[in-house]
C-alpha cells in the first residue's frame, strides 16, 4: 500500500513536470504552428538567474537569495519575459515563414541562450540550494513522500485549473482558443494577432520558469542542459497528445511520466538502465496505433 502510494506520487510529480512542459510547447504550437525548441533553454535560463554569473566553480546566489514569496513569482516572470522577448525579436519576423524555418530559428535561439549561459557561468554544473524547506518528507497515509513532490503536484493542479478558467472564462482565453483553431478567421473578427501570440509566449515562458524551479529544487544543481530532457519528453507528449490539443498535451505528459515510473518498478533489475528505451517503444506503439495523436483537434489545418 505505502509502496503503491510512493509510486503514485513519483508518477504524478514526474508527470506534472512533463505536462507543464508539454503545455508550454502546445500553447505556442496552437497559435502559430511553431515547435519551439528553445523552450528547454528557457528552463535553464530561469534557473541560472538564481546564481551570480561567474565561470568559477563557486556558486553564489543571486536571485536565489530572495525569500520564497518573491523568488517564485520573480523566476516565473523572468521565464515569461525571456519568452516574450524571443517572440518580439525572433519569431515575429518569421511569422510568414514556413514551419520548418521557424523551427530551425528556434534551434538557433536555443543555442544563443545556451551559449550566453556558457559564457557567463561556464559548463560546470553548479550546486544550488534554494527553498530548502521542500527537501523534508511528509507522511501521507503511512508513506513518506518528499514535500517537493506534494507541492509540485498541487502547484500543477492549481496551474491547470487556473489556465482552464483563463481559457474558458475570459475574453483573452476565448481569443486564444479561436486563434488556435483558425487564426486568419479570428483576425478577420478583430482578434489582434500580436497580442494573442505574445500572451501565448508569456504563459509558455512562465511555465518554463516554474519547471526550472521544480527541477532545481529536486536536483540541487544548475546545469546548462537541465531543460533538455524535460523539453524532449514534453515535445513527445505534445505529439502523442495530438499537436495543437492542450488537453492532449497535458494527458500525454502525465501518461509518459506514469509510464517512466512504472517501467522503473516493473522492469527486471538488469533492464532498468534501459528504461527510456522501453518508454519510447511505447511511444512508437501509440503513434503507430494513432499517428494523429490521442486527442487530435478537429481543426488541425494550416493557418496564418
Amino acid at each position, binding site marked *: 500500500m505505502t509502496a503503491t502510494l510512493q509510486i503514485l506520487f513519483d508518477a504524478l510529480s514526474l508527470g506534472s513536470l512533463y505536462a507543464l512542459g508539454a503545455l508550454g510547447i502546445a500553447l505556442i504550437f496552437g497559435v502559430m504552428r511553431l515547435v519551439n525548441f528553445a523552450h528547454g533553454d528557457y528552463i535553464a535560463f530561469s534557473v541560472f538567474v538564481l546564481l551570480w554569473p561567474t565561470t568559477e566553480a563557486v556558486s553564489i546566489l543571486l536571485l536565489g537569495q530572495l525569500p520564497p514569496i518573491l523568488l517564485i513569482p520573480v523566476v516565473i516572470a523572468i521565464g515569461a519575459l525571456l519568452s516574450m522577448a524571443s517572440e518580439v525579436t525572433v519569431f515575429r519576423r518569421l511569422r510568414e515563414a514556413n514551419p520548418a524555418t521557424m523551427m530551425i530559428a528556434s534551434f538557433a535561439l536555443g543555442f544563443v541562450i545556451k551559449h550566453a549561459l556558457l559564457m557567463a557561468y561556464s559548463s560546470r554544473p553548479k550546486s544550488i540550494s534554494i527553498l530548502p524547506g521542500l527537501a523534508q518528507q511528509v507522511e501521507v497515509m503511512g508513506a513518506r513522500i518528499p514535500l517537493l513532490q506534494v507541492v509540485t503536484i498541487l502547484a500543477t493542479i492549481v496551474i491547470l485549473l487556473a489556465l482552464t478558467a483563463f481559457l474558458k472564462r475570459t475574453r483573452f482565453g476565448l481569443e486564444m482558443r479561436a486563434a488556435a*483553431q483558425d487564426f486568419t478567421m479570428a483576425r478577420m473578427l478583430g482578434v489582434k494577432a500580436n497580442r494573442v501570440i505574445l500572451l501565448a509566449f508569456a504563459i509558455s515562458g512562465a511555465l518554463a520558469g516554474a519547471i526550472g524551479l521544480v527541477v532545481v529544487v529536486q536536483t540541487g544543481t544548475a546545469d546548462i542542459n537541465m531543460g533538455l530532457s524535460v523539453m524532449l519528453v514534453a515535445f513527445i507528449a505534445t505529439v502523442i497528445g495530438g499537436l495543437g490539443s492542450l488537453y492532449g498535451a497535458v494527458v500525454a505528459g502525465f501518461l509518459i511520466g506514469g509510464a517512466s515510473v512504472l517501467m522503473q518498478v516493473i522492469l527486471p533489475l538488469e533492464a532498468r538502465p534501459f528504461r527510456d528505451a522501453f518508454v519510447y517503444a511505447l511511444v512508437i506503439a501509440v503513434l503507430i496505433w494513432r499517428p494523429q495523436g490521442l486527442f487530435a483537434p478537429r481543426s488541425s489545418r494550416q493557418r496564418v
Partner: protein
Amino acid sequence: MSLLAVENLVVRYGQLTALRGVSLHVEEGETLFVTGPNGAGKSTLLKAIAGVVRPAEGRIRLAGADITGNAPETTARLGFSMVPEGRQVFPELTIEENLWLGVGIRRNRAAAAADLDHIYAVFPMLRERRHAAAGILSGGQQQMLVIARALMTAPRLVAIDEPSLGLAPKIIDQVYELLMRLRAERQLTLLIVEQSSTRALMTGGRLVLLRSGQIVLEGACDALDGATLERAYFGYDGPAEVTAS
C-alpha cells in the same frame, strides 16, 4: 463618399495575376453582388479588402480611410466584417462563443447583448444549441452561424463569400431569405460574392461581373437581362444563341 471604394486593384500570386485593375464602390445601405465564373478573382477581391492578401497595386478605402494592406484585425475593427468561403466556424468553440468572439472589438457591451438577443430571435436554432460545439451543426446551420457572427461585430459592411457554396437549393433559399430579412431589419450594407448570377438577379441590388480578374459588366440587377449577363459571364456569344436556336 462611398462606404467602400476600391480603385484599380491588382493582386498577384507569384507569376499569376488574379486581379487586373478592379475598381468598384459600395454605397451605404446597398447590396452589391460580385459574380463571375470560377477563377475570376472574386474571392481574391474580398481577401484583398479584408487584408488577408496584399494587393500589388491600387487603393482600398473604407469610409474614407485608406485600408490598403492593413492587417485583417485592423480592417475588421474599422467595420468590415468578412464571412469567408467555406463556413469557417470555430468547430470546437460553442455556438455562443463563436458569436461572442466578434464582440471583442465593440465598446458597448449592452448593445452587443441586445444584438445577441436579436440574432437568437432570428435564428432560434442557434439559441437552442448555444452551448453545443459549432462543429456539430449542418452546413446550412454553420452558414447561418457565420453570418450571425459577422453581425455581432456591429459592422458597417458585411462581405460574404459564396454563401451558397455546397448547400442544397432549399437551404440556399433559407440562407438568402434570412439574409434579406436581416438586411431589411438592420439596414445592412452587403457585398456578396456569388457564382450564380441568377441568384443575384433574384435578390436585387447592384451587380458587377468579374471575369479573368477584370470587371466586364456592371449595373442594377433589375436593369440587366439574363441574355446579356450570360454572354458576359461566358465571355463569348456562343452557347446562349446556340441553345436558343
